[in-house]
């Protein structure tokens, strides 16, 4: 029996879809059967981040309305055989689904997959309620900015009100240099404000932009630091204890120079 994890944030543009894709790939590479579900009806994006946009035949709404069977709509990723994507509909709107239907969908996915990751739309309205309806567990993505942390706080409150206790935080787009000079909130600063456990910290990394351009999530790229962070996050999801990446050590020309002199 699988576990349904919703990836949410409140604010848009903080990296929900990127996080969903990367965790999904990393879990699949670790041998787990994974279904990625794009719950952002009307604004689907997980398919392009995954590089599967050309393979869509049916979507989530087709499944819910009974136009096709669930298995027909699931796109099997040829690169990672354990990974499947259920794309969102692009032409419908969020009210085309209700929470009961999402719950039912999640229950049937649980029979075939180890992990079902739901990419939640931004906001706190119907789309959010749909996305969390079938979830057993929640991940809140935020960046170290006032607006994103504020919205994360709101989401944490709403998740707990919906009986999704103990959500876990992914702090995305950390820039170690800025944290070091005190111009960006650190993990400790954010945890000081939000009442939430930490799942992982992801550095702001060019490799994310490059891999999104290509449609190959960074967690499948060996030398990507952000990819490594996402692989660690997925190991923590599977219950492993993984130390946090030391983001302060190897970035920046001056530091590398210093390191050279230090030997």
């Amino acid at each position, binding site marked *: 029996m699988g576990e349904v994890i919703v990836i949410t944030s409140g604010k848009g543009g903080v990296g929900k879809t990127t996080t969903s894709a990367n965790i999904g790939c990393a879990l699949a590479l670790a041998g787990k059967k994974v279904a990625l579900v794009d719950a952002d009806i009307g604004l689907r994006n997980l398919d392009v981040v995954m590089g599967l946009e050309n393979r869509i035949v049916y979507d989530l709404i087709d499944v819910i309305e009974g136009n096709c069977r669930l298995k027909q709509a699931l796109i099997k990723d040829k690169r990672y055989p354990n990974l499947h994507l259920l794309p969102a509909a692009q032409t419908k709107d969020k009210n085309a689904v209700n929470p009961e239907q999402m719950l039912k969908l999640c229950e049937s996915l649980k029979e075939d997959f180890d992990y079902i990751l739901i990419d939640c739309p931004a906001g706190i309205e119907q789309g959010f309620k749909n996305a969390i309806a079938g979830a057993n567990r929640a991940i809140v993505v935020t960046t170290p900015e006032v607006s994103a942390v504020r919205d994360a706080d709101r989401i944490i409150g709403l998740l707990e009100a919906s009986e999704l206790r103990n959500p876990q935080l992914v702090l995305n787009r950390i820039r170690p240099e800025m944290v070091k000079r*005190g111009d960006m909130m650190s993990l400790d*600063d954010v945890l000081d*404000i939000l009442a939430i456990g930490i799942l992982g910290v992801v550095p702001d990394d060019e490799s994310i932009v490059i891999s999104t351009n290509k449609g190959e999530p960074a967690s499948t790229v060996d030398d990507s630091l952000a990819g490594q962070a996402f692989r660690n996050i997925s190991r923590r999801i599977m219950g492993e204890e993984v130390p946090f990446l030391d983001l302060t050590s190897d970035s920046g020309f001056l530091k590398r120079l210093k390191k050279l002199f230090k030997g």
Partner: protein
Amino acid sequence: MMDFFSLFSKPQSKNIAKDRLKLVLVHDRANCSVDVLEMLKNDILRVIAKYMDIDDEELDIQLTQTKSDTNDQVPMLIANIPFKNVRPKEKDRE
């Protein structure tokens, strides 16, 4: 640990961010809007004005948070109300 150079530099902007966030979240979590606070302020003023002369402009009322006995953060309403003098009682005035 204090960096030598940070003694001469500007205040760290992350602390400004944290302070602003904390204040915003006190309001968000208490579900208390500026409007409500303004209405509360006016009501408090009206009651106190029955007994004391106060300067409306000097009144400062705000939400903040404090640690409770069990060490949880709880919201707290703080009002600073400087007054000029206590009004004489009704019967004294007669």
